[in-house]
């Protein structure tokens, strides 16, 4: 039992590994503690997967793929099962939302919207499972040729802790729709909702072995997944640094296919013709949503000189009014950072910012002496070579600066190793169109930010990774293209 702030408590039902349709202890018998970031207290002890557990999960997934019903049933049948899973999730919204809030320090109000949205994502891919089309091709010779889009096989998914539900489903749903089987390693900080989802998956009728969930640490369980010889594809979301290791492990083992959704240092570019109130609100949410623990956080804000002063003033006012506290409280806008390590890392970046000569407009400190709360923090006069302008901080820390011309804004926005997302705020259609094409990033939001939808593909340029999540694009991460060619005699057309 874990306690909520409102005096209620919640029963943690699932803490074991989910392998071949069963909740089991780890082979080693080891467990690890998952922590409540509001207090630093232990929520539950969770079975810790090591290489042996990953092996048995892969074996189950392999068997389910090679001989089981999942890839052999029609897309329509898979879709029906995914629909049923979605309905079951809808019936447990509050319980799952509480798990994510407790595990990750995310706002309970937000999680109660996030959980239904993952059910909707499942329905989207349920409806996609029967719409995977190959093509009949044109050949130069007298051949008949076509492509088959085949499920790629056993997929390893490694999921981060910042959106435990959404990122579980943006990997699991398209790969299930495609007919794959899988081993999912959730983040060690946030294993609880993934295990709950696995339980519901079984109730929905997903056959044993198709979906396996192995909580554990990156260096041990994650690494075993990445270098496994019997996994056909690895899909990773996390830091750029770990992404490199994932890709190396894939290269050194069986050359499994890799897709990576990594870090970002996304710019929001605000032009003189923008409405300052709206723009400052958008920029504020852009960095503070989910405590800044968002890969697409708008962590570099560029404001055109004509409105800069007014913008800065309004932004700081809004940041000061931002409510940080227990994420179960309905009026709270920002909970604690996920764990001690992140908390300390963010504070150290803030110190860097000060030392490097950026102007601290507001925030900059931890709040209270319990849990991992940090003030909304805004630095101005940030130069491009400062660490806070280059690194992904993954916290509520904005780097604000001024620009003169569109060309300058484009150049500075692109002056990063990352390319995940960008925001543009302008009423001018020409600026919007030109900047949209000029910024080297996988997602451009014009006069909006953080718009993720099931049908909108998402993924990075440059060191932000490759491969798209969401949309019909995501299916292709989990499909192999096979061409079939045969001679054709006396065809009336070619």
């Amino acid at each position, binding site marked *: 039992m874990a306690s909520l702030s409102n005096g209620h408590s919640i029963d943690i039902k699932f803490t074991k590994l989910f392998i071949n349709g069963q909740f089991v202890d780890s082979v080693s018998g080891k467990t690890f503690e998952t922590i409540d970031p509001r207090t630093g207290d232990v929520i539950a002890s969770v079975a810790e997967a090591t290489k042996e557990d990953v092996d048995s999960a892969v074996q189950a997934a392999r068997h389910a793929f090679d001989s089981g019903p999942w890839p052999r049933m029609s897309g329509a049948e898979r879709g029906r099962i995914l629909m049923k899973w979605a309905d079951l999730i809808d019936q447990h919204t509050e319980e799952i939302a509480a798990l994510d809030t407790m595990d990750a320090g995310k706002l309970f109000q937000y999680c109660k919207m996030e959980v239904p949205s993952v059910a909707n994502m499942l329905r989207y891919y349920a409806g996609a499972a*029967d719409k995977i089309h190959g093509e009949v091709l044109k050949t130069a010779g007298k051949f008949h040729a076509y492509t088959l889009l085949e499920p790629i096989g056993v997929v390893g998914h490694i999921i981060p802790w910042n959106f435990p539900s959404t990122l579980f489903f943006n990997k699991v749903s398209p790969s299930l729709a495609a007919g794959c089987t899988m081993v999912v390693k959730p983040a060690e900080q946030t294993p609880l909702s993934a295990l709950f989802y696995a339980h519901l998956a079984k109730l929905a009728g997903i056959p044993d072995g198709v979906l396996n969930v192995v909580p554990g640490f990156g260096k041990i369980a994650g690494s075993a997944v990445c270098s496994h010889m019997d996994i056909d594809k690895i899909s990773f979301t996390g830091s750029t640094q770990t992404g490199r290791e994932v890709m190396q492990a894939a290269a050194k083992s069986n050359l499994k296919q890799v897709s990576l959704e990594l870090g970002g240092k996304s710019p929001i570019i605000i032009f003189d013709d923008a409405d300052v109130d709206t723009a400052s609100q958008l920029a504020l949410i852009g960095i503070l949503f989910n405590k800044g623990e968002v890969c697409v956080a708008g962590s570099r804000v560029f404001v055109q000189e004509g409105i800069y002063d007014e913008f800065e003033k309004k932004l700081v006012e809004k940041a000061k009014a931002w409510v940080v506290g227990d994420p179960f409280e309905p009026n709270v806008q920002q909970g604690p950072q996920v764990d001690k390590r992140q908390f300390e890392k963010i504070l150290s970046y803030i110190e860097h910012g000060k030392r490097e000569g950026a102007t601290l407009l507001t925030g900059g400190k931890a709040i209270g002496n319990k849990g991992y709360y940090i003030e909304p923090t805004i630095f101005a006069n940030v130069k491009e070579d400062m660490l806070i302008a280059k690194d992904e901080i993954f916290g509520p820390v904005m780097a604000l600066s001024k620009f003169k011309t569109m060309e300058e804004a484009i150049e500075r926005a692109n002056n990063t190793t990352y390319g995940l997302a960008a925001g543009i705020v302008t009423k001018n259609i020409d600026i919007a169109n*030109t900047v949209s094409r000029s910024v080297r990033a996988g997602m451009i939001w014009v006069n909006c930010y953080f718009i993720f939808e099931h049908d909108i593909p998402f993924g990075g340029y440059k060191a932000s990774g490759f491969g798209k999540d969401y949309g019909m694009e995501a299916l292709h991460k989990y499909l192999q293209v096979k061409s079939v060619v045969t001679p*054709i005699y006396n065809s009336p057309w070619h």
Partner: protein
Amino acid sequence: MAARRLSSLVSRSLASSLLQSPGRTCGRWSNLSRFSTAAAVQELITPQVQISYTQHLINGKFVDAASGKTFPAYDPRSGEVIAYVAEGDAEDINRAVSAARKAFDEGPWPKMTAYERSRILLRFADLVEKHSNELAALETWNNGKPFEQALMSELPMFVRLFHYYAGWADKIHGLTVPGDGNYHIQVLHEPIGVAGQIIPWNFPLLMFAWKVGPALACGNTIVLKTAEQTPLTALYVAQLLHEAGLPPGVLNVVSGYGPTAGAPLVAHMDVDKLAFTGSTETGKVVLELAARSNLKPVTLELGGKSPFIVFDDADVDKAVELAHFALFFNQGQCCCAGSRTFVHERIYDEFLEKAKARAMRRIVGDPFKKGVEQGPQIDVEQFEKVLRYIRSGKESNATLECGGARIGSKGFFIEPTVFSNVKDDMLIAQDEIFGPVQSILKFKDIDEVIKRANETRYGLAAGVFTKNGDTANRMMRALKVGTVWINCFDVFDAAIPFGGYKMSGIGREKGIYSLNNYLQVKAVVSPLKNPAWI
């Protein structure tokens, strides 16, 4: 008068899959003797369903016809009236179109998100699943098709189709396209507006799903005219669709006859799109009326005289069973019925013997009775037309191998009929009979059979039976038809497009292709200033 000609022709056609393992089905029914249920035709089983809806459904409400008129709906097992249904005319069509117009121009349907539309369609599919028994009973009662076929095959397919289209609603993608110069170009796929849809009587529910599913998924509003023979199930499911959350005015259902209700819908100046399934003759009239009124785009699924071609390397037993199914399924009332059975001369005699034996084993009777394979024809008009074609076959010296007569003295039951020695120029080899009459023709080689199979004004479907990959590959390209089934027939998955070449129609239904019927394509072009790339 064009409108007058619509009267007898405005509704019919089309089939759906079932019995994908004919061998197994055959086994289950083989212990029943031929026509064993003929006696039961006199003691009809009472359907377990009430007829609750007989009025038009306009703007979310059941209403009487403007004229107050009604027309009878019949039980084809007996020819007796089972209900009186509101009879639509131009005024009812006007009211329905104006409701649909308002729902499209002002209503929430095209304005809500695709995801919300998709949820309503999913809820509807769930409701239909719950009401499957009543719906299947009503379908059989009004249409005469075997109840088991309606319940076990057609209702699940109906549900499947709505799941399928619900899944499309939020995946309708326009394109961004490259410009030759500095332009940003987008292509929007917009709902087309008010769709007029006219469906036939042979698969009342499935034809509803084929038409209504994609139109709604794309965000259109609809005026649907059902066949006068089979108005009942559409009203029932339309009511369920409203229960699932469909806003009023989005789907309006008007019952009535072709000339008086169909024609005003086709010619209506405020209908943006017309989709019709029925006979080729009526299809021509529909196209003409659309041209004369507001040039609305038209989708047509029309008649067929589909070849079923059996090569000498085929497994004869399987080919016989499938050829039998291809023709006799749904009392032969399928637009894609395999109504020209071409058999290679080397296996012709064996095939003929077995095809005849199979037809003689076919169980005809009360379609509510378990194990019955064939019920009555839809109505007296069709019944007499089929018997006329049988007479024509005999007169043109085709060999009547079996059947050829009506069964009993009540209802519209016809014996499974097989003709051999059929020649290409006989009427029974050229016209769509739309009844349980199999015509078997002999061929020598592949070039000959390609030529003969294509020598028809129709081009709906074809079956090819062979073990040889080269033969299959050549045939699939050489046949001028919209669907080629190789070593199978009547496979009607939701994702498989269906439609005709030549005079079998225009456009495709089902699959991703069906969406095109209900979408406008709009190109949006704007200049780009100093783009990073074009």
